[in-house]
């Protein structure tokens, strides 16, 4: 799938400020914007035309009522986001989704939360093998399906 080049209508500074509010500092890590994740958010959002359209619309809509967002204090920024969340839940949902996805694929975050960072395949996981004795009790029940 093609990756779109970010365009001028999406300000990295705004995305970064949004990220800082959405995902604050934790442990030894700063907030998501200060981790420098805005660039990756914009890059990844361009990975599908439909999502890119949703994302740019979200940013444009947010900017239309919050042109001074990056200059606000933290509490006022939170208020602005909460208002956007209530007024435009679908657009806000797209912003939140991409923010969480980018944050939780970062190796620094994996280390902090103790997650083994990898795609699910090809490595997979290890599980305790099937043990038929778990059925000891279930097997005692008489058949109860309805005969016709």
């Amino acid at each position, binding site marked *: *799938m093609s990756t779109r080049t970010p365009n001028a209508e999406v300000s990295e500074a705004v995305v970064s400020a949004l990220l800082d*509010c*959405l*995902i*604050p500092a*934790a442990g030894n890590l700063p907030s998501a914007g200060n981790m420098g994740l805005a660039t990756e958010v914009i890059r*990844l959002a361009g*990975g*599908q*035309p*439909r*999502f890119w359209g949703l994302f740019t619309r979200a940013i444009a809509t947010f900017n239309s009522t919050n042109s001074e967002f990056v200059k606000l204090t933290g509490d006022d920024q*939170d208020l602005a*986001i909460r208002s956007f969340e209530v007024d435009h839940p679908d657009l806000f*949902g797209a912003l*939140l*989704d*991409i*923010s*969480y*996805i980018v*944050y*939780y*694929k970062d190796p620094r*975050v994996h280390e902090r*939360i103790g*997650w083994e960072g*990898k*795609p*699910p*395949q*090809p*490595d*997979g*996981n*290890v*599980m*305790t*093998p*099937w*043990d*038929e004795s*778990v*059925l000891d*009790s*279930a*097997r005692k*029940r*008489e*058949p*109860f*399906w*309805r*005969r*016709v």
Partner: protein
Amino acid sequence: MTNKDRTTERDGETVDILVIGAGASGGAASAWLAEAGFDVMCLEQGFWQDASKYASASPDYEFEMMTNWAIDPNVRQRAEDYPVNVSESPVTPVMFNGVGGSTILWSAHTPRFHPSDFRVKTLDGVADDWPITYDELEEYYDLNDEVMGCSGISGDPANPPRSPRQMPPLPIGDDGMRLVNAFEKLGWHWWPSDSYINSQRYGEGRDACNFCGHNHMGCYQRAKSSTDLTYWPRALRSGAVIKTGARVRRITTDAAGRATGADYIDSKGQERHQSARAVIMAANGIGTPRLLLNSASDSHPEGLANSSGLVGKNLMFHPFAMITGVFPEKMNSWRGPLSNFAMSQEFYETDRSRGFVRGYTYQFQRSLGPAWVARGGFTDPIPWGQGHHEELEKRLGSMMGMAVIGEDLPELHNTVDLDPELTDSDGIPAPRIRYTLSQNSRDQLDHAIANAKKVFETAGASDIYVDPMMQQSGWHLMGTARMGNDPAGSVVNRWGQTHDVDNLFIIDGSIFVTGAAVNPTPTIQALALRTADHIVAERADLKGRAR
């Protein structure tokens, strides 16, 4: 190039059987008929999939899962997808277009119908009986299990005895045992699920599951069965031909109203026609009625095979409720197949004291990775800002779910028809869904939610979340060209042959009379094999030349 610019090219030979759709049923019937010596061609609007490119192999898998590999075609929007107008439905149909069809992105949970599911009118006075019985279908269930490869174990007291499964069950896991123990404390049924996921090596080049947890995203390991890995290699070896990127515009008919083949648009945008002695529709419970309605002609003015007026009527989903529990302990609940390792059918059969007829299945669910958990999984997203990290820590690896699959009864007002404006990228009218949840289905779900809460409380969950009806849950598309003995009250007969057109068959979920309370694919495939067997035995007239 506009449609008007295109000229139709007529493909060379007339084939015996033209199959529309290469998914669960199309693959099964194509293999069976090709092996019996029929000249089979399949038209599939999607393409072959490269397992190494599945979302589960990408570092950006969580983004891919909600965009390019989304289960909802309206979100995925690939060139081979068609849009579906869902503005009048609380349930969104989900599907995949490609060789393998929706078995590419399914969870491969494969329970069977119960005998009672074929007799709901007789037993419970609702809907209608099927014109066939469980016993008539059983041998085809067995055949299908063998080809697809079933992990499981016989002896389930909630179901009739069945043949030994090909492989032992998938592991239950420490997380699964939390739910199992709760069911046993409550004295309620549970059993390892039949699953078309390899618990050990089985089939052609298909490895055992490595418990990556993302089997619904396409299986890199080829452990999850899909018809591109099972039936299609057999079909191709027997001479079947599959044309990918071939979008069917209409089924064509002659002056007498018999099917003559299909007009389609090939992968280069060229209008073409393929002639055939018979046509088999295998395009799912939405795609098939859409095509039949798009195939209206002088001899079939209301749509092909629609003299009953029932094409597109009686749409059934399985409305899903999802109940999620968060446990105090870490259980690594991202390990192992997401949703098909165990089930309960304690409340499957009708008990009128519950206030509704028919019943439901619980399907045990795991959870996935941190971004999925943060985005809510099967619940609401984790709050952003203050408190976010604490909540994620609480839920990650500690969540288990129970999906409720209730039996949705057929109702005439739940329909698939042609949208007056919406079209696909080739200008072909797109389907429109109109669906409302019945009170009986709502009552089932509410009963199931209350009992699921008891399970989670018994299991020691600290928090319980409920989604009373998942929107993106329309996996099971059924009933829109129903089977029956009466041509005035059904679209196909007991063999899947349309009453109106003797050389037109339907083998997907459209033909279901009722939907039971289980995942429908093994039943769809068993019906497809049965129809193919019937054609082999009774329709030598459709075979053009000895092979």
